[in-house]
């Protein structure tokens, strides 16, 4: 019992720490989780961790939160999930609460307003470069199915304002059909 408590406390503190100090999004945080839980604590073996990370990346939701869920579940079951998820959301919750108070106060300040206006062009450029990299990755695969999905999704959301959720649902259904077709072929 005492050892369990110790382990949960360690799990809480390490996910809290990772969540508070990891800049650069979910992909960075799962790498650091691997370092912490595989190399440092030896709580999870390497192969299993790779699969757990794959689950975190392919399930819906933020990768950082999903990473906390898989690690927590693996180490301590449902109580582990609760502990590590709470630890993961505390830092962004506190930081953004503080910022949103300042935001309301400072938004009318000329310098802050100019700074934010300029940063809108900056963040637009960051997103454009990310889309460019992801898009060329998919074009290079030369898979006509992917290209058609990419083109149609863009057209229906940008020009026809179709709800994003429907696009994702349709793609999930297509993916499931593809899985069944592949399974059928393997059996034949």
């Amino acid at each position, binding site marked *: 019992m005492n050892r369990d408590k110790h382990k949960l406390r360690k799990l809480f503190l390490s996910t809290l720490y990772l969540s508070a100090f990891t*800049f650069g*999004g*979910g992909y960075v945080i799962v790498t650091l989780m691997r370092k912490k839980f595989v190399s440092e604590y030896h709580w999870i073996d390497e192969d299993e961790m790779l699969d*757990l990370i794959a*689950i*975190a*990346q*392919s*399930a*819906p*939701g*933020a*990768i*950082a939160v*999903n990473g906390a*869920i*898989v690690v927590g579940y*693996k180490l301590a079951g449902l109580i582990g*999930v609760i502990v590590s998820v709470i630890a993961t*959301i505390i*830092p*962004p*919750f506190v*930081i*953004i*609460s503080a*910022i949103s108070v300042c*935001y*309301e106060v400072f938004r009318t300040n000329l310098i802050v307003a100019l*700074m*934010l*206006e*300029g940063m*809108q*062009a*900056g963040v637009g*450029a*960051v*997103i*454009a470069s*990310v*889309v460019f990299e*992801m898009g060329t990755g*998919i074009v290079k695969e030369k898979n006509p*199915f*992917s290209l058609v*999905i*990419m*083109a149609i*999704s*863009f057209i229906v*959301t*940008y020009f026809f*304002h179709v709800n*994003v959720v429907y696009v*994702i649902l349709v*793609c*999930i259904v297509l993916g499931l059909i*593809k*899985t069944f077709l592949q399974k059928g072929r393997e059996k034949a």
Partner: protein
Amino acid sequence: MIYLQLFLSFLQIGAFSFGGGYAAMPLIQSQVVDLHQWLSLSEFTDLVTISQMTPGPIAVNSATFVGIKIAGIPGAIVATLGCILPACIIVTIIAWLYIKYRNMQSLQVVLSTLRPAVVSLIATAGLTIIISAIFGELGISIEAIKIQMVVIFGICMLLLMKWKMNPIFVMVLAGILNVAQYFIIGNIL
């Protein structure tokens, strides 16, 4: 019932954002800006910028930010819970199945079908942000174009694509450039 609305909106954001990083952005925009008008497009862009510069996933950050703005701290808690609940259920079930059966292939086929769509959804949201940064919230028109924003956007693209500079650095630089041009050009004219 604002708490229920916040909860359900962020529940959808949590349930349908696949792929991490910017994947949640189009969903947040469609719920928070288009559907419920809880944030203006430029407030939403500020939120994306702030999320870039602080640790924490964009979905959790937006849940906190929108929740506080609409219904204070309780609103933020409700929205955050909504946003993480689907993952807590779905990921735990998948982890349980994985530890039991150790088979992940089907999941990855579905994910590979989603990836091209997610790229396009991010492109759509990104384009809206760029257009609003350059032309303002009313949309494309020749009179509304802000030349300084076009220049700043161009400089940022160059720094990111050609010299692979750190995105946080590039965004801060974009802000500083805009402050600088305001005072320099303002003094000349």
